[in-house]
């Protein structure tokens, strides 16, 4: 029974220590990740109605609509982690031993396993050979450790032994990144909020479940603006935000411009410029109307969605208005409105009026000439709100990963042994990476040493 149990545990352990498992897991992760790039994640209703019932049921059961959080995808990530930890536990002690307890003595058996060796003639003054060799290695390679065994002298020098740990640094960094992501998902949140110009709020809405989240301070939007390039493409979306904590505006965060690529952070909570739109609740438009035949201009104040009577009969309604018409008609700029005029006994007709082109309406040829003075319509700014205490853990992991990859790929543990025994001097060397490069360095060392002995 016990042997059976141990047998099972052993099998499981071997399974998780296998590099083949790593390759299979990595390929599986790559292949399954494709699904979520083809099937929309958290899809809108418009998409759902286009697929068949059976397809919907299957996708839903497999978690394809939130694939990267489905149980089987998370399971793959956990398997990868266990695989990583098991492999490291199995191999790290051996590597650690190479780093911390280097083999100081090159015996005959070891000499045969080294691909780079060279034998030197013993010079006449054999007594000073050891000092010469020590000084030579210290100068040209690195300071040697000297060991005496049965009258034979052994010198050992090495460079960057710790770079052998690079692989483990990479693997550790992956686990650190996972931990950072978990911290973020347990203790952080993503939310959004729309704030109308001139108003403030202290609650935001969770992006996951719409639940309100209290910030503990409030954010006021003083102003929102959009600017454009000559081509009509948007140049900048900007909100002026003020943080109000304990009823007081926070110094430095008063009317602070917040633009795309330059967010505002306060108490670990960051606000990102994300969208904008007109605040639809009743705004007033200001127009002036004068009869073509001549006469006093009359100022009109028109509430959005309400009819206002015109001098001489008839009514006017503002159908739509915008602070920047360029979004719709690239040739024009500035505020504009679409108005509808209903003559006393005629059919309604609609047309556009522009603030920046006050004389344009004369060309329309109507009996009444309108000029548009703009509206007090306000924008709302749409902000994304994020609080992620795990993000620094993730960045540390990323930095560690890059450092680890550099150690693993571009650094090499180089070792050189010299044995002085029985009238022979034998030098041997090995490197953990780039054997061709090390061979050149080794040959150069041999040449130099020949001249000095």
């Amino acid at each position: 029974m016990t042997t059976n149990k141990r047998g099972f545990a052993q099998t499981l352990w071997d399974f998780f220590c296998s590099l083949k498992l790593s390759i299979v897991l990595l390929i599986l992760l790559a292949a399954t990740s494709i699904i979520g790039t083809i099937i929309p994640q958290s899809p809108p209703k418009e998409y759902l109605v286009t697929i068949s019932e059976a397809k919907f049921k299957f996708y839903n059961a497999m978690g394809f609509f939130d694939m990267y959080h489905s149980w089987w995808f998370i399971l793959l990530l956990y398997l990868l982690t266990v695989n990583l930890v098991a492999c490291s536990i199995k191999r790290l002690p051996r590597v650690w031993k190479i780093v911390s307890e280097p083999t100081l003595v090159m015996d005959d058996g070891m000499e045969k396993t080294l691909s780079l060796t060279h034998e030197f003639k013993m010079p006449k003054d054999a007594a000073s050979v050891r000092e010469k060799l020590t000084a030579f290695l210290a100068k040209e390679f690195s300071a040697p450790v000297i060991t005496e065994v049965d009258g034979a002298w052994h010198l050992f020098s090495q460079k960057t032994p710790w770079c052998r740990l690079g692989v483990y640094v990479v693997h550790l960094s992956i686990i650190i990144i996972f931990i950072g992501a978990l911290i973020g998902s347990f203790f952080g949140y993503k939310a959004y909020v729309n704030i109308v110009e001139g108003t403030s709020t202290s609650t935001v809405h969770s992006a996951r479940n719409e639940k309100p989240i209290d910030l503990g301070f409030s954010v006021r939007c003083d102003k929102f603006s959009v600017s454009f390039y000559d081509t009509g493409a948007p140049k900048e979306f900007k909100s002026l935000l003020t943080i109000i904590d304990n009823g007081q505006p926070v110094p430095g965060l008063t009317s602070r411009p917040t633009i795309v690529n330059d967010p505002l952070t306060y108490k670990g909570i960051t606000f990102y410029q994300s969208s904008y739109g007109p605040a639809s609740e009743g705004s007033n438009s200001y127009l002036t109307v004068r009869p073509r035949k001549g006469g006093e201009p009359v100022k009109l104040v028109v509430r959005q969605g309400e009819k206002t009577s015109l001098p001489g009969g008839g009514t006017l309604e503002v159908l739509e208005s915008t602070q920047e018409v360029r979004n719709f008609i690239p040739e024009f700029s500035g505020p504009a409105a679409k108005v509808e005029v209903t003559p006393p006994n005629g059919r309604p007709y609609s047309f556009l009026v522009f603030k920046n082109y006050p004389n344009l309406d004369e060309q329309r040829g109507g009996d009444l000439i309108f000029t548009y003075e703009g509206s007090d319509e306000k924008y709302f700014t749409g902000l994304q709100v994020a609080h992620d205490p795990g993000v620094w853990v993730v960045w540390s992991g990323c930095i560690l990963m890059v450092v680890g990859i550099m150690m693993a790929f571009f650094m090499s543990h180089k070792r050189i042994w010299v044995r002085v025994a029985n009238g022979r001097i034998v030098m041997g060397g090995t490197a953990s990476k780039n054997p061709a490069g090390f061979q050149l360095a080794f040959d150069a060392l041999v040449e130099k040493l020949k001249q000095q002995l």
Partner: protein
Amino acid sequence: MSSSMLFNITTLSYMVSMLIFFVFLGSKNKTVGLAGSLTAYFGLIVQTAAILLRWKESYDMGHGHAPLSNLYESVVFFSWTIILIYAIIEFKYRYRVIGAFVVPFALLGMAWAQLGLNSGIEPLVPALQSNWLLYHVITCFLGYAAFAVACGISIMYLIKERKEDNAATTPAGGIVAMFPSIKVLDDLNYRAIMIGFPLLTLGIVTGAAWANYAWGTYWSWDPKETWSLIVWFIYAAFLHARITRGWVGRRAAILSVVGFAATIFCYLGVNLFLSGLHSYGKSPM
């Protein structure tokens, strides 16, 4: 002289270089091989000048930014990085014949950019107005280019291995005899990926850092992000394949080709086939 004229000269150089390399494969004449490389390097220098000139031209137009902001500019930059990585590998390892399998990728990019893409210089939309754009795009594309070189080498590997399998009956001759041995090709493939993998890793990290800075999430499983991770998984599998018995050689070469196919999909396919899924302001390329 305008940048677009220089780009035309670049395209022409890569075309001539490729043709010379094909002659080299047929003739095995060392001087021809040298001419192929030199023509490619001439193209690289002209292209460098053209990219810098285009950069300056954007300032002259009043909305200066690095020429990395739209598909045309990125394809041009991709071609440039491919020849650059080829130059580095050629200088270090002296296997000229690889050019015959790498220069065509650069030519394809330049020809497509010059003939099929809108080359107008446009101002940057708000989402791209960040220094992160520069770091992110440069690291990603250098990584992609190294994978392109690795893919060319892996194709050589697969051709050569196939020929050598048949060599029992017919002696391996012809063009394939020019190739480095499959052991060397396997090693070069690994070395190219050793350049590409850290760069892709940096590319993904800078992308995540930028996304976090601009949108508040370092990772949102957007199709582009996900595909870059897919590419990363494939090359991570490659690195482990190299140290696992039974996965060395042929399977590693296939992984390298699959990896580059995924890279190209990540770069172009996502925008062409999956772009409908991108969210607001989130289409850096």
